[in-house]
């Protein structure tokens, strides 16, 4: 059928004039000016071996801050106890563990008072497990962002880990109070503490990035992670010291990066001898994991918006 034209744009003609009552933005850039020689953005299929674009991440550093801040703000909204939950979790677990493992089962604790021993282990473990759980789910939970706006996707799991770090800081205050109570004298070993915390953060970041990308494609990960975390605690020296195991099996425990990390916490806080080899093993595994995770994240990233 022949269709004739309809020329009825009169109703909206008035919108050519700027709407009144609004303020002109300062300093509108007239793009009739100079254009850059090189394109600011090139869009093309990525090569298979693309690596992390650090410039891009740096440009969006404020977004990392805002997403972290959002996670922290929102997490305890409309809860009665609020941020106290960050303390309650490790504190109550510590009390139960002290009762059952410390008192009743008589698990040794390298001559550290058992509550201190358990709490320091739990502090590290709670941070790690919360960080990888939330960051693992973070991409899928941010589907509305991933499909609607561009920014380096790594920021999403990164912000989840960073928010976990805030909880860690709060729970750490209790540890300090326990240390004062048990009259622990702080030695120079404490200088290593920030390093160990950084190592935990990087390890959690590597795991979180990898898990979050996997979850986009395989929702199975969501079910596997909580279960593996539960098992993971028993193969990490949280409730027992590494020395609890026979000498010949200890290297096996060191393959778990959390071993070196948790022992590192105790050594730096309570002035014990560092087990440098297991700490080095943790650092090496963390480094390899980070490289692998960012590589595989980059590889899967390009399909996120299409399959999420």
């Amino acid at each position: 059928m022949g269709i004739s034209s309809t020329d009825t744009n009169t109703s909206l003609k008035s919108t050519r004039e700027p709407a009144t009552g609004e303020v002109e933005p300062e300093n509108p850039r007239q793009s009739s000016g100079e254009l850059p020689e090189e394109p600011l953005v090139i869009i093309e299929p990525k090569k298979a071996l693309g690596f992390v674009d650090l410039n891009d991440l740096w440009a969006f550093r404020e977004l990392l801050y805002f997403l972290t801040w959002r996670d922290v703000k929102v997490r305890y909204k409309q809860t009665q106890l609020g941020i106290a939950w960050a303390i309650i979790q490790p504190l109550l677990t510590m009390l139960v563990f002290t009762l059952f493992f410390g008192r009743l089962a008589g698990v040794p604790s390298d001559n550290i008072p058992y509550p201190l021993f358990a709490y320091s282990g739990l502090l590290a473990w709670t941070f790690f497990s919360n960080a990888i759980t939330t960051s693992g789910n973070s991409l899928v939970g941010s589907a509305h962002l991933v499909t609607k706006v561009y920014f380096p996707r790594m920021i999403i799991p990164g912000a989840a880990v960073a928010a976990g770090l805030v909880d860690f800081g709060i729970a750490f205050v209790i540890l300090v109070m326990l240390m004062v109570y048990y009259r622990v004298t702080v030695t120079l070993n404490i200088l290593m503490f920030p390093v160990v915390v950084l190592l935990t953060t990087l390890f959690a970041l590597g795991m979180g990035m990898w898990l979050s990308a996997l979850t986009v494609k395989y929702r199975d990960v969501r079910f596997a992670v909580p279960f593996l975390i539960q098992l993971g605690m028993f193969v990490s020296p949280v409730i027992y010291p590494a020395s609890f195991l026979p000498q010949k099996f200890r290297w096996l425990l060191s393959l778990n990066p959390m071993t070196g990390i948790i022992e590192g916490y105790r050594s730096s806080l309570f002035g014990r001898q560092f087990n440098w080899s297991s700490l080095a093993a943790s650092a090496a595994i963390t480094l390899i994991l980070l490289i692998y995770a960012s590589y595989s994240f980059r590889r899967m990233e390009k399909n996120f918006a299409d399959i999420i």
Partner: protein
Amino acid sequence: MREIVRVENLSKEYIIGAREAAYDTLRESLVQTMRAPLSRLRGRNGKGNSETIWALKNISFKVDPGEVVGIIGRNGAGKSTLLKVLSRITEPTTGRAELYGRVASLLEVGTGFHPELTGRENMYLNGAILGMKKTEIDRKFDQIVAFSELEKFLDTPVKRYSSGMYMRLAFAVASHLEPEILIVDEVLAVGDAQFQKKCLGRMSTVASEGRTVLFVSHNMAAIKSLCNRAIWIDGGQIVGAGQTGQVVLDYLQKGAVAKLEQTWDDPLTAPGNEKAKIRSARVRPLPPREDEEISVESPIELEFEYWNYQPDAFLGFTLHLYTIDGTYVFAVGCAGERRPQGLVRVAAKIPANFLNDGIYTVTIQVVQDNASSVYLHPDILVFEVLDSVRVGNWFGKWPGVIRPRLEWISENVVQRGDHEQK
């Protein structure tokens, strides 16, 4: 002058078919890997036999700085995919695009708003997500608040906002972006008329500041008033590009498809919800004609049938008529009545000599208790009113949406001879 946007042979392929319908599961992948480890190494996942479609195929165009380009096309033509590729949300399969400026894309207003956070907090969060720096938001804070008219509610969580307030805040933030290239999807499709007007006003301000804008819309009136160039996409390819007026005209003439009758015999697949489902819709001239041509001079009968699933509901029916370019012609309701469960028939007659020639779309709405909408079906019918044999000596297109026949009186009141005698 150099172009600010260069798009060369951009294509995007999507895999459809059974394997993509469900999420891949780990088990499937493991089994796949065990069975054919080599095929997994060679090509990813060995999805050789799934069907693929090209959402975009060899799209090339250039945009000069300061141009406002409209992208038009029917649903599923590839407009949104193009915007997603240009916004870097998804990667092209082949091809390349170069952007010589800061890009901001607005595929949705209020991206990343968190319901638990206050208006003020969401302003910062949303701004950061759209690519603004904190200092930039600080600097524009007062302007954004003034634009949103929400001074009093800044410290209220947005979950307590009405949808109108929410949109106002979201648009206020988005409209204070200062990119060199702005990519805008059908943002204006939401919100009330007042809000749309404000958005369009803001858009034209942005355009007049010399920014480059790529704008997708179904609202032809908006496209025509904002854009100096238009690109028409169909089936993932550019089928027309050039002066907005001409491209829009071509699109409306060739792109529109008349929908004179629709029937759904199976209630399972019929559009609707648990309260009401559409059974049929039909438009025809009166008296009915073999060729179904509707002329300016024929009365038009619109007839609808819908299933009412609620016992004893007080139901009304509203007919919304639009021109093809989105101008609202009217919304007229049929008085409500108490209806038992079952099939309801509604018919209306548009008198002859009322609508001008042109293409119209019909949206219908079942209304309950004169208050709430039970079901709204947009664009259920599309029909054309043809010009009739002309009386008089004007053969061009009559402007306007309606063309009523008025009661004219035209007579000589004073004759020249009389005047001279005075």
